[in-house]
């Protein structure tokens, strides 16, 4: 299934990826080929089959509501590219 240049740009916008013109064309070709291959799943009639989201059948995993040691603000901010006091600093939205 071939996808268009417009679709590549739309998906890149959704994913917050800036692409060069050369990348748009390269990804258009590669994603078309990959989608063609993975589109194979459409061949199967799977009405009535339940989806699997997770390989183990776990449900309602509870934990005691007890305080545990955690990072202090300084540690949590230690890897930030930019900060101000106890805040992450970002450009205006």
């Amino acid at each position, binding site marked *: 299934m071939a996808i268009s240049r417009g679709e590549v740009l739309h998906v890149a916008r959704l994913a917050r990826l800036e692409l060069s013109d050369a990348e748009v064309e390269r990804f258009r070709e*590669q994603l078309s080929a990959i989608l063609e291959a993975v589109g194979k799943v459409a061949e*199967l009639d799977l009405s009535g089959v339940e989806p699997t*989201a997770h*390989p183990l059948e776990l449900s309602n995993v509870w934990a005691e509501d007890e305080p545990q040691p955690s990072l202090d603000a300084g540690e949590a901010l230690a890897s930030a*590219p930019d900060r101000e006091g106890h805040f992450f600093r*970002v450009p205006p939205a």
Partner: protein
Amino acid sequence: MTIDTLRLTAEEAAGLLERGELSAAELHAAYRAAIEERNGELNAYLTLVERVEGAGVPIALKDVISTRGVETTAGSKILAGYRPVFDSTVAARCRAAGFPLLGKTNMDEFAMGSSTENSAYGPTRNPWDTTRVPGGSSGGSAAAVSAGLAPWALGSDTGGSVKQPAALCGIVGLRPTYGTVSRYGIVAFASSLDQVGPMTKTVRDCALLYRAIAGRDPRDSTTVDLPEPVELPERDDLRGVRIGVPRELNEAEGIEPGVSAAVSRALDLARELGAEVAACELPRSVEYGLACYYLIAPSEASSNLARYDGVRFGLRAGGDGDARRMYEQTRREGFGDEPKRRIMLGTYALSAGYYEAYYGQAQKVRTLIRQEFAAALERFDVLVSPTSPTVAFPLGAKTANPLAMYLSDVLAIPPNMAGLPGLSIPCGLSEGLPVGLQLVGAQFAENVLFRVGHALERAVGFDVVPRRLA
């Protein structure tokens, strides 16, 4: 004492330490010397650790595993210089077990790849032939163990990333049952598939390391307690073991004749050891497994990799513009081609109008795969096939064609979709390069895999030292 790191197993190393014939610092230094000698040509390590912390057998960790204070990049430029302020649970368990950290190993960026060529820090080379890839994405860990640069290592396996490089480097690799090893602090790729696993020279070493890292972790609610303790395999026979040989996993297009021949010889040995061997079928798991994986894993990745936005950690680019420009430029500069491709593929598969046809359908295919494997594993204790259709391929052979690279995991992926454990052991050479044998068991049947793997390992008598280095 001269230590031959090419041959020494972790179990033997532990024995030397216990008997006081060697100190942990001396053992660590022997591996450091081997690294000094051979890492230049192999590029197996991204970061080396000088301090010797712990009195046990040292270990190498894939760079996807968060280590407190030690740079953790996941092979990506977007995490260059990132030093986690916390340990992953597996790193903490290695620390608690007294395994000094040797360093962090190279990998395909965010564990996306089958050759370690997608690393932002240059490819790792195969110790058997440095013009060839070590497999991936845990290629650094595989090469380190194979070339005697670590007695054992941890990798991670989402779609074959422990099993396949183990096969291509002639070592043992276990992808454990999903949920038996904590993912806390593992840089996330596809959360319903990611599992950390041991990479070792022998099956017994593999069992020892699995024992050290497995078990429920309150910090990862998808983990469970092991139903039985990990047993170190002893027996050399396979009496009473039922081995299934799925036709589709053994006759898939693209399997090299030399790979099939090595697997056939291993099956002959299994019969001689007393196993019952019979053919079986997995008609849809192999035909649709790869497609199912390449919808589910990129979808999960597109969500997990949303966190790299230049705010809390890692690279920031374009900070002079507005927030949106900053996100887009950070991700443009920080991600390599493969993460970009998978983020786009996953975003597409999850987007309005396509969700049911792609992601929803793939989740249903996953149910079929689980059912097929469950039915086969009622009749058999283990299912056997090649781990990879080919031996190690030349660097650059598949980099221009993502689909060709993806096919490298066509045999490793189907059992992963079902959450099943898989053990790869070397079973011979083809064209002078190692061939891996994949043993798949029921969920939580690691002890069965260790028993079968150990007996076959003895019978095959594979020499794990790369001929070039022997």
